């Protein structure tokens, strides 16, 4: 296959892209006792996917992406707690709007900087929100957060149960599918191509007259809205919100997931989240220190030797074994 044809056809739907979704449905029937874990996994994928849009495609290095996850989670939490607005779907929309607005406002001012300053500013924005959530105890529950949130049944038909997570799982799967479709369309659109251009060669994009900052702010806003949806799903399916939704640990966690899977590619978030959460599930409770050392060593190794993550290793192996192309 020639390079030109490969480039022209790479957005085409391929048969194996059905596999993740088939697997998602299969899990629902095969592991009915692990749906709570599965729901967390789907949310982690969505969150990492939102980060991929800014980090992987637009090349914005941020340490504060949990700000938007937390904004979404607190939005649905506070709506349900104080206004009794507990309809899940409209809650998702509200969360996306709030997180997107914060993304737009912060992106508009922050994205004029770059490098260390940008890193610091994203970190500070997140810390600011975290402190605000900690302080505004009357609205946010402060340090304890809001436990025991009540949400209405999905579409008025499927109540959330905190024992088996059946409706939560399917709900999260469906939301992830929709968001993924959006991201997939975006990254192959001219908009997505110009983001990649900005990442690869900023000067040239300025030179050809691309509206660089507007594109970056738009990407940041969309990504923030998606992260907000992930946060809202988290709050709705678990029926609680606390400061953990906003912290450095969550921001670092999603970064690790994305890098582990491979950034700047659609399925990195999926692979990273599955590997990370499975390992965490198996190791973190039983051997917390060993888990932390292992995680640290893996991160160092990825930074030094495997910059494209697990999927990147897969590509390299396939090339070495005589396969033709990377998907």
């Amino acid at each position, binding site marked *: 296959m020639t390079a030109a044809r490969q480039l022209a056809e790479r957005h085409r739907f391929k048969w194996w892209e059905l596999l993740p979704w088939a697997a998602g449905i299969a899990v629902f029937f095969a592991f009915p006792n692990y749906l709570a874990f599965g729901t967390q996994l789907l949310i982690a994928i969505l969150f990492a996917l939102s980060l991929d849009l800014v980090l992987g495609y637009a090349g914005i290095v941020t340490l504060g992406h949990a700000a938007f996850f937390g904004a979404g989670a607190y939005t649905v939490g506070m709506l349900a707690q104080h206004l009794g607005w507990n309809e899940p779907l409209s809650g998702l929309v509200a969360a996306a709007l709030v997180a997107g607005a914060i993304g737009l406002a912060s992106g508009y001012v922050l994205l004029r900087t770059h490098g260390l300053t940008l890193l610091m500013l994203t970190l500070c924005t997140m810390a600011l929100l975290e402190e*605000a959530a900690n302080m505004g105890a009357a609205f946010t529950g402060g340090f304890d957060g809001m436990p025991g949130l009540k949400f209405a049944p999905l579409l008025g038909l499927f109540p959330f149960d905190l024992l088996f997570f059946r409706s939560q799982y399917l709900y999260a799967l469906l939301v992830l599918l929709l968001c993924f479709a959006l991201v997939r369309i975006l990254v192959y659109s001219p908009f997505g191509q110009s983001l990649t251009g900005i990442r690869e060669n900023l000067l040239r994009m300025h030179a050809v007259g691309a509206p660089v900052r507007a594109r970056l702010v738009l990407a940041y806003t969309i990504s923030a809205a998606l992260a907000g949806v992930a946060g809202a799903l988290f709050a709705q399916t678990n029926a609680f919100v606390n400061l953990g939704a906003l912290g450095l640990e969550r921001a670092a966690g999603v970064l690790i997931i994305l890098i582990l899977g491979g950034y700047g590619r659609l399925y990195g978030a999926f692979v990273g989240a599955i590997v990370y959460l499975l390992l965490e599930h198996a190791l973190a409770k039983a051997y917390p*220190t060993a888990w932390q050392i292992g995680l640290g060593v893996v991160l160092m190794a990825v930074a*030094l030797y495997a910059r494209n993550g697990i999927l990147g290793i897969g590509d390299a192996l396939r090339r070495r074994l005589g396969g033709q192309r990377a998907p």
Partner: protein
Amino acid sequence: MDQLISILLGGLAAGMVLFIVSVGLSVTMGLMGFVNLAHGGFAMLGGYVIVLTMKHWGLPFLPALGLGFAAVAALAVVLERLFYARLYRASELDQVLFTIGLVFVMIASITLAVGPETQTVVLPDWLRGQTDLGFVKYRSYSLAIIVAGSALVVGLWLGFERTRFGARIRAAVDNRRMAESLGTDVGRLFTLTFAFGSGLAAIGGGLGAEILGLDPQYPLRYLVYFLIVVAVGGLGRVTGVFFAALLIGVLDFVLKIYFPKGGTLFIYALTLVLLLWRPQGLFGRRAS
């Protein structure tokens, strides 16, 4: 009035600790543009060396500080040659990932080797109690930290401004390529400053254990503070970092007393505004 002075002194002592820990970070970031999130980890390791050798080997305070400096500086050289050197030309993202990984390893190793509990420093007799300054009585230890920090900033300033080595560092921070083409080995310069800065961080970790506390979560808890000090002070600017550290230290101390709940919020907001107004930091020079 007395209360005001003692609050000011407490804030100054905290600021001095921030300065001693952060100054190395500022210089190394300025030299190589390396985003080193593990810097607080070196401070923590140094703090542990200092506290544990005092406790178990009965080492006096000052030799323990020296040992902490030497041990951490040596470790820093090894890590720099083995790993950091490979990442100079890598993207910020790789540097961030690597150093976060390093922090995790440091935290877990300390938890495994020493335990998760907070360590306390047993101060020598001559640093305990209060000293009468004539106009106010204050804790001797805090005063000693202020004196040590002031001496350090004078020493560093002289080293930076008056020695050939310092001139090389300044040249490399301002324009690395030009310095390299004039024959300065920036790599070696970096190794040395990295070791020295990490050693200083170690001393800061030990000296500041009284004020900031010392436990395995130290590097992550204070990461944002160290970064704020460096970002506000400007990269590679010793005096800038000094003033920024004092500013943040005093502000934090005062705000924690008068607004125990919202103080940190104010510092984050201030940093945001400052960095938007002057991305190169309050005292930094605009990149050419």
